[in-house]
């Protein structure tokens, strides 16, 4: 059961529709490719009176996030979006709403980082902000970009959560591609998002100090409180996704599985490449390989339990990273390995780096990774050391 009408929409416009339907009060964003269409569409909606929001034109992403922090502290429902270099310029301020527990919602149209200058997709920008303390989700298609943005508001503003939330969608692959999707009624979405109330807002009648100075005698306690609260958001995220599924008929979970029931080989991806990987899984199955696919929908807080459950019968886990942690290999692969380190029974894990700066990974790219990983497992068994391989590189 899915409610709504089928429309063809690019990912950016789908996100803008979500922001309109949740009735954001303040939008502050600086345009940057490939996120530009989201900002443009929202600016248009505000100018045309379709959305009753304050649109703050800022001179940089640093200011965009700063304005969001201030507006959120004043009790407003806020939105911003960015990508690549812009997200990096915002970096300093990203830590503020998470530690001040302000439910800012942001969308990132993932883009590579310079140099060389690239406006195309990879996950370098996302991986550079792993530790900012925001809830972070990855969308696989435009429907998910819409749904996850709606859910981000409900989760972030929940009284038991009060953390900022970020939705990642692959630049161009989703932001600029028109896909069919189910667009629910305004009323349905508005009804799904309760009134936002923060226990502390900037109010002269009830003065409080926010973002105070934290000397050594208290800083660690504030971080402990933040971290415990952040870990606790996981159950609320799952609860919200369940409720979303009940209303809208589309169900999400922190770790999405495709043909994993009897899989011994699993590919692991994040973002839009999951759909290509599904086709590769089908072809591998036809060739007699018991392959499946795991997509991390929730990236932060990391879904340890669900991930460990998903791979408990897997013998070979093949991880794709669309980013490099220079000198360390692939960041997702490193995290996945550390998540399984304490497990007695764990799969061989082979990481690949690919899809950098907008390089496509076709179906045969995923099949190559699986076949190459099987060879590498033999090398591991011979006691040889294996390195992270970058795929699709010309010699």
């Amino acid at each position, binding site marked *: 059961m899915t409610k709504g009408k089928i429309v063809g929409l690019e990912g950016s416009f789908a996100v803008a529709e979500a922001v309109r339907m949740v009735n954001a009060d303040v939008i502050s964003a600086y345009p940057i490719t490939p996120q530009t269409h989201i900002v443009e569409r929202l600016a248009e909606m505000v100018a045309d009176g379709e959305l009753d929001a304050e649109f703050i034109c800022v001179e940089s992403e640093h200011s965009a996030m700063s304005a969001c922090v201030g507006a959120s502290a004043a009790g407003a429902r806020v939105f911003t979006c960015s990508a690549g270099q812009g997200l990096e310029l915002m970096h300093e301020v990203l830590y503020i709403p998470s530690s001040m527990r302000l439910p800012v919602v942001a969308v990132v149209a993932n883009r590579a980082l310079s140099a060389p200058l690239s406006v195309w997709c990879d996950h370098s920008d996302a991986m550079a902000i792993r530790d900012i303390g925001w809830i972070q989700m990855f969308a696989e298609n435009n429907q998910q970009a819409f749904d996850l943005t709606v859910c981000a508001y409900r989760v972030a503003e929940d009284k038991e959560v009060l953390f900022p939330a970020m939705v990642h969608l692959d630049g161009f692959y989703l932001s600029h591609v028109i896909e069919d999707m189910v667009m629910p009624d305004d009323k349905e979405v508005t009804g799904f998002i309760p009134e936002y109330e923060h226990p502390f807002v900037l109010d002269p009648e009830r003065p*409080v*100090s926010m973002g*105070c100075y*934290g*000397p050594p*005698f*208290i800083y660690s306690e*504030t971080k402990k*409180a933040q971290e415990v609260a952040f870990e606790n958001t996981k159950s609320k995220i799952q609860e919200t996704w369940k409720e979303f599924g009940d209303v809208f008929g589309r169900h999400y979970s922190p770790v999405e599985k495709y043909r994993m029931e009897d899989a011994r080989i699993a590919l692991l991806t994040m973002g839009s490449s999951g759909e290509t990987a599904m086709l590769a899984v089908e072809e591998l199955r036809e060739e007699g390989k018991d392959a499946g696919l795991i997509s991390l929908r929730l990236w932060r807080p990391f879904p340890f339990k669900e991930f460990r459950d998903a791979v408990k019968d897997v013998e070979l886990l093949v991880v794709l990273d669309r980013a490099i942690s220079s000198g360390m290999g692939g960041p997702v692969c490193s995290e996945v390995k550390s998540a399984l380190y304490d497990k007695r029974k764990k799969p061989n894990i082979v990481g690949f780096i690919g899809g950098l700066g907008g390089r496509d990974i076709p179906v045969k790219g995923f099949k190559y990774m699986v076949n190459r990983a099987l060879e590498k497992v033999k090398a591991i068994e011979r006691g040889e050391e294996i390195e992270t391989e970058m795929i699709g590189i010309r010699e």
Partner: protein
Amino acid sequence: MSGEKLGWKDLEIGAVVTEPGSASAYKTGDWRSERPVRENEKCIKCGICYIYCPEACIHEDEEGYFESDLYYCKGCGICAHECPRDVIKMVEEVEE
């Protein structure tokens, strides 16, 4: 209440401080490694130390002499440096 005894569960969400003006409870005197000590016989009550103290922790007493509030005095030595009569000496703090 300076917050030094607070545990992590005692903190408000986002470490919000609900007591207005509570910064005055913060003992900046803890930063001090030297304290200002005065020989008031030489003091001409010009008030220069009072004006220059960046912590605004110097007060005038009933006789018109000046003294530093050691709860806040950071021991920067500006008062000693600016005093035209060499009234103030900076003396090293020692563990009691």
